[in-house]
């Protein structure tokens, strides 16, 4: 089988997260597994493909989920797809989160907008062995209350005793009673031993930039900050050249990078 060709994956459920975001549950036609943080290329047959990090539990083998924001030609078509439709997928590609290295550590997870999708998969991977971690603080920011994804899961995310979940919105509406402000406003007074703590940041580039700078300011080591970088990966195999970042290809050497490894490169936030 040619390396660039997709396999079939059939939609078995669709969850409307927000007016512009949907989560698709797929049943892959052939065996598929991924490590949390790795990405796949999802194909709309005959039209095009786009890279996504699955948002589901990597331990679940018979199905996987992808959370898609409607932003372009291909994602708009995904949003029009119905249960029972067959799309294409290939992957997984790249390196995921080094979960084993997080053992016995304290973790801070910072997510922005649809950036919670890859983090949701990480959260499952961590919760599957929750006692391996001393403490986990999850900070999530969305643009507005209606832009919050996985509303129905947030209570589950808060359940483990060693987890603290913080939530904020940039702009509140009349119904909102929680925090207001960008996600970095949640990062003060963290109940963590910051010098040794692990940071994981995922979200839009501008949010990643300011969250990372905030983490550094708080005293996180650049060697402990993990970033999910994104570019327009086309092949996913380090061949097509689109996603170069310094000496790396994001598809092959990432998409998860340790901040220390990329901090001296030009234009990492562009």
């Amino acid at each position, binding site marked *: 089988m*040619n*390396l*660039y*060709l*997709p396999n*079939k994956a059939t939609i078995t459920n669709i969850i409307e997260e927000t007016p512009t975001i949907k989560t698709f549950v797929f049943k892959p036609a052939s065996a598929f597994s991924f490590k949390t943080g790795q990405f796949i290329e999802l*194909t*709309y*047959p*005959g*039209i*095009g*493909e*786009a890279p996504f990090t699955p948002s589901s539990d990597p331990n679940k083998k018979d199905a996987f989920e992808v959370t898609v924001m409607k*932003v*372009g*030609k*291909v*994602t708009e078509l995904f949003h029009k797809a119905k249960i029972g439709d*067959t799309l*294409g997928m290939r992957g997984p590609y790249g390196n995921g989160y080094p979960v084993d290295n997080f053992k016995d550590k304290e973790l801070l997870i910072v997510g922005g907008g649809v950036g919670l999708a890859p983090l949701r998969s990480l959260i499952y991977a961590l919760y599957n062995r929750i006692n391996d971690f001393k403490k986990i603080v999850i900070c999530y920011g969305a643009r507005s209350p209606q832009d919050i994804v996985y509303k129905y899961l947030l209570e589950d995310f808060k359940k483990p005793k060693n987890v603290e979940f913080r939530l904020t919105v940039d702009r509140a509406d009349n119904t909102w009673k929680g925090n207001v402000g960008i996600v970095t406003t949640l990062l003060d007074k963290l109940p963590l031993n910051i010098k040794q703590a692990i940071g994981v940041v995922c979200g839009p*580039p501008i949010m990643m930039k300011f969250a990372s700078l905030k983490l550094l300011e708080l005293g996180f080591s650049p060697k402990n900050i993990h970033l999910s970088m*994104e*570019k*327009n990966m*086309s*092949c996913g*195999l*380090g*061949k*097509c*050249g*689109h996603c*170069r970042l*310094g*000496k790396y290809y994001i598809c*092959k050497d990432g998409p998860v990078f340790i901040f220390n490894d990329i901090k001296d490169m*030009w*234009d990492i936030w*562009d």
Partner: protein
Amino acid sequence: MISKYLYIKNNDFPKLLDNLSADYRVFAPQETRKNYFWKEYKGAFQFSKYRTITPLRQFFTPAIEHIDNYFASNAKPGEKKPICMVGAKACDLGNALKMQDYVFLEGDTDNSYKQMREQNLIIASDCTAFKETCFCLALGNMPYPQELFDLNISPVDEGYLLEVGSKKGQETIASNKSFFSEASDTIVKQRENNRKITVEEFRCQIQPLEFPKDSLLNSLIKNGYGDKLWTEEALRCVECGACIMNCPTCHCFLLFDTKDENGYFKGRIWDGCQYKNFTRVAGGANALRLREQRLRNRYIKKFEFFPERIKLYACTGCGRCAESCPAKIDIRKIFKTLNENQNSAKK
């Protein structure tokens, strides 16, 4: 046992190509107003003095390629006849082919590329002259092939000295024995002498360029990130992409999905970083949104990224980018200016 050097007479060479036409589609450069273009060989062979306009890589990764159909396809893969290219020059082999091999064969193997690399036959040839934009010598490369060919021909008295460069080359000789005789020492010496003369003439052309020493190129690009030259040069860029399409070391491509009578298929088309949408993501963000960023990116990729990855410059000095650029953006001038700017900054 076939010796490394053989001799073939001028009028036997087309006969060899005729024989090869049974197994290969034979391509050779054809001259049109002092430029050479790759054309399918139709019985008339003419030795090409210097490189073609377009790069050799088109025979390993075609500019547009139908990769394969997917999902419920009845299509049967068509048998592709391998290609024999006659007259490949050093600037299309050497580092150019090494880095294409690295991209398409290392890690996950691109089977279509692998197949073409294994099946195609490369008959290289010496340059006996050079174009105005040629500058391989300035990068320490020679205007005659030294590696990665199956056979190489060098014009000598009334024929060609033939050097065997691979097992496939040996097999080709073995099945066409009647055309070849052992090359005499005089003939071998004649080749050395011809090469020396070409290199000397070439050196005279290169000298006035004041091209920096090749060992400096990496640091000139590294330290030249904020140089004003990128803006000044890029202002003239019309984003035609000629520098990419004609470059022997460019390799970027875009996968695309479409339909034909056999159903959905995945295709591949050459892409490149001088195009505005090369790094554009859904939603509109674009890491290389300015022409100056894109121009600089091309040099970073060739003189920083590839040295970091495989310890070689992804440039062979063919000068095609300078030759084909309607805005006269010239790699030789870019390096000269970077060098001058960085030298004057030191003072």
